[in-house]
């Protein structure tokens, strides 16, 4: 594969919300960076035909569980990063609920090392708020920042102790890092497997009420307000918490949030199948919550679309609903779901959707990505907005296939994915077949 030199992307609709660009033009890449717009082909430059396609800053997924170290039967850094590339993501942030959790410099560097060896997309590390994710003592946040951690989270578990959360928000301010929190009051969700509502009542399944998310979201907003710290509410799923965030933003609280495709696409009715691929946390909610997620995306309350990619080996998901783990894979279906569920029905236009997958997460994480500014790293996702395709879990690059979207017909997917000026993925297979992931060790 050509390592650098020049690449000219010709004739695409270039959408870069970071600069307010939305026009048909050519993009020239030189030495791994964005060099110029409106450039013309010269003699020896390699060209990529993007006519009829969308040329966007490389997509960013700020919520990915790569499972390595510790749960390599579910996913590895290599397979996860490879799935990310196929899904159109040039940068991902991995969440620290690994085994051991990412709470030391050494673990951060281990992940960076494996990500570099995998040589797929950029992998940013979210590190633990608390040592061993126990919610008792702060992790060595300053050292983790020095190692390269971009944000802090105990995801999977909420930061439960309000005093610890307050201290973390205060402490992270000197590094200008956000706390990403999973809002869930556990006393209210104990034993729950799905959203508490009419469907859980009929199915006799223990419910997880929306109020469990709302109560902790309210707490975190109050603490962010009091401390001036930055809090990012992960995978928001309820109308109540979205409304709390909307109002908090209105009065200037430093709160941001994200939503996953399954929460703006599916409702708790899906659980009638008792299929564990519909079991995630937070759970699929009632239809009014699904509509609230879409409304939050439309009015800008929800800054980011992320996947919460949560691979689980098949044998784990084949258990009874209460034994099966929470979560689904999402890297390879996210873009198609955004196009099919948000753009095609007219909820979002392309620049709005792309902003929530590029510059918005880049700003929250404070990473120099998500833009096609001249001189920026040439991370570019060329999207075919019209291609219709069927989700086939068997073709997934992820090591796990726990998706509820198998067989779904979607529109729109990544056509060509460029990282640092190098073509890492082409949908037609024209990229060299170093794509077939092999175990890194």
């Amino acid at each position: 594969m050509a390592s650098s030199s020049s690449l000219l992307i010709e004739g695409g609709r270039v959408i870069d919300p970071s600069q307010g660009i939305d026009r048909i033009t050519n993009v020239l890449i030189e030495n791994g960076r964005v060099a110029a717009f409106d450039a013309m082909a010269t003699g020896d430059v390699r060209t990529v035909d993007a006519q009829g396609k969308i040329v966007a800053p490389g997509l960013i997924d700020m919520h990915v569980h790569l499972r390595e170290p510790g749960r390599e039967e579910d996913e590895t850094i290599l397979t996860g990063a490879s799935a990310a590339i196929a899904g159109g993501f040039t940068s991902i942030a991995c969440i620290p609920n690994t085994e051991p959790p990412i709470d030391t410099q050494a673990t951060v560097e281990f992940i960076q090392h494996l990500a570099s060896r995998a040589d797929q997309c950029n992998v940013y590390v979210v590190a633990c708020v608390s040592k061993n994710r126990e919610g008792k003592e702060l992790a060595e946040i300053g050292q983790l920042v020095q190692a390269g951690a971009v944000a802090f989270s105990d995801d999977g578990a909420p930061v439960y102790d309000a005093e610890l959360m307050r201290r973390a928000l205060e402490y992270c301010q000197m590094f200008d890092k956000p706390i990403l929190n999973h809002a869930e009051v556990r006393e209210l969700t104990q034993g729950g497997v799905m959203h508490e509502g009419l469907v859980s009542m009929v199915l006799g399944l223990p419910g997880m009420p929306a109020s469990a998310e709302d109560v902790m979201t309210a707490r975190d907003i109050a603490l962010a307000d009091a401390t001036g710290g930055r809090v990012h509410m992960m995978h928001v799923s309820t109308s109540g918490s979205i409304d709390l965030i909307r109002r908090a933003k209105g009065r200037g609280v430093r709160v941001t949030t994200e939503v996953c495709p399954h929460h703006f696409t599916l409702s708790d009715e899906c659980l009638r199948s008792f299929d564990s691929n519909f079991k995630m946390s937070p759970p699929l909610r009632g239809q009014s919550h699904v509509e609230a997620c879409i409304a939050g995306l439309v009015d800008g309350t929800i800054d980011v679309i992320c996947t919460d990619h949560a691979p689980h080996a098949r044998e784990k998901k084949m258990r009874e609903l209460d034994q099966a783990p929470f979560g689904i894979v999402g890297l390879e279906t996210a873009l198609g779901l955004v196009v099919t569920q948000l753009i095609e029905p007219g909820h979002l236009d392309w620049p709005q959707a792309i902003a929530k997958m590029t510059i918005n997460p880049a700003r929250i994480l404070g990473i120099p990505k998500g833009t096609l500014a001249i001189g920026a790293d040439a991370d570019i996702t060329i999207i075919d907005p019209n291609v219709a395709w069927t989700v086939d879990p068997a073709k997934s690059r992820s090591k796990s296939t726990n998706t509820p979207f198998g067989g779904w017909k979607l529109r729109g997917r990544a056509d060509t994915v460029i990282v640092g000026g190098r073509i890492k993925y082409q949908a037609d297979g024209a990229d060299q077949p170093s794509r077939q992931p092999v175990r890194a060790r």
Partner: protein
Amino acid sequence: MSTEVWDIGAVPAAWTRRHLLDLESLSAEELNIILDTATQFKEATAGCTQKLPILTGRTVANLFFENSTRTRTSFALSARRLGADTIDFAASTSSLSKGETFIDTAKNIEAMGIDAVVVRHRTPGTAQLLAQNLDVSVINAGDGPHEHPTQGLLDILTIRQRLGRIAGLTVALVGDISHSRTARSNIWGLQKLGAHVILCGPSTLVSKRWEEFGVEVVYDLDKILHRCDVLNLLRIQFERQSTRPFPGIREYALLYAMTRERLERAKDNILILAPGPINRGVEVTADVADGSHSAILDQVTNGLAVRMAVLWLTLGAQGELTAQG
């Protein structure tokens, strides 16, 4: 005995199900087919005491992942009354700790050459999970708090026998609705057959949202006694509760136990059901449980009749077997 004695006709054409997973998805016609077949079997076997060997050569596996004495014995006996062989597989959930999934366990049993699986499990949806993964008939003998279709059917059959009809009756389900699979199966079955259903119990165990399905929700038992034709007293499922939904048993009994005093204020011919095992003194006092209004022992006999009917229908013993989820 000649075969004519056993000539009970073919499986009705309107019955096409290989599995019985719930009552929610059954039509009134299908419910009546089961009830009519059960009645016929009860008569043909002198009240379920004699054999009617129409499933000879078939094997029914009882897969009980949760403790049960009554239901398991009832299914085993029903299968044997019809001439089928039975095997019992009592699995604790500890098989999971050996790394074998629930589906693996069931597939192993299936590979031994059986025709039907009767499954009881603490988790809702397990019967459906088996139906999707096995090629044999699956009968739900209770999946957590979701459904217990044969219990619902035997309750309804008992009401029909004692009161002559279902349509137009007012039936109150009293007690722990939220953890009760019996309640859910009764709600769907009774409603489809035209009964008016009242749910009565502590507000922490009876959701007002059931009213969205046309059920009446009342918290004061004394306010409904005068208009109920049937009271079905559900057992408080202490084992399914992680938190205490009411302050104590004494308070529960004070508010909801069916006592002689309450019975005197009820309709003269009120029918008292209890799916059992009953907590005497909690849901019902001993004098009421053993009194003339109680149909508790009829329920046990009808359990055999209903389970024979369900086994025969789902196995399609004498009719065409049509695959249907």
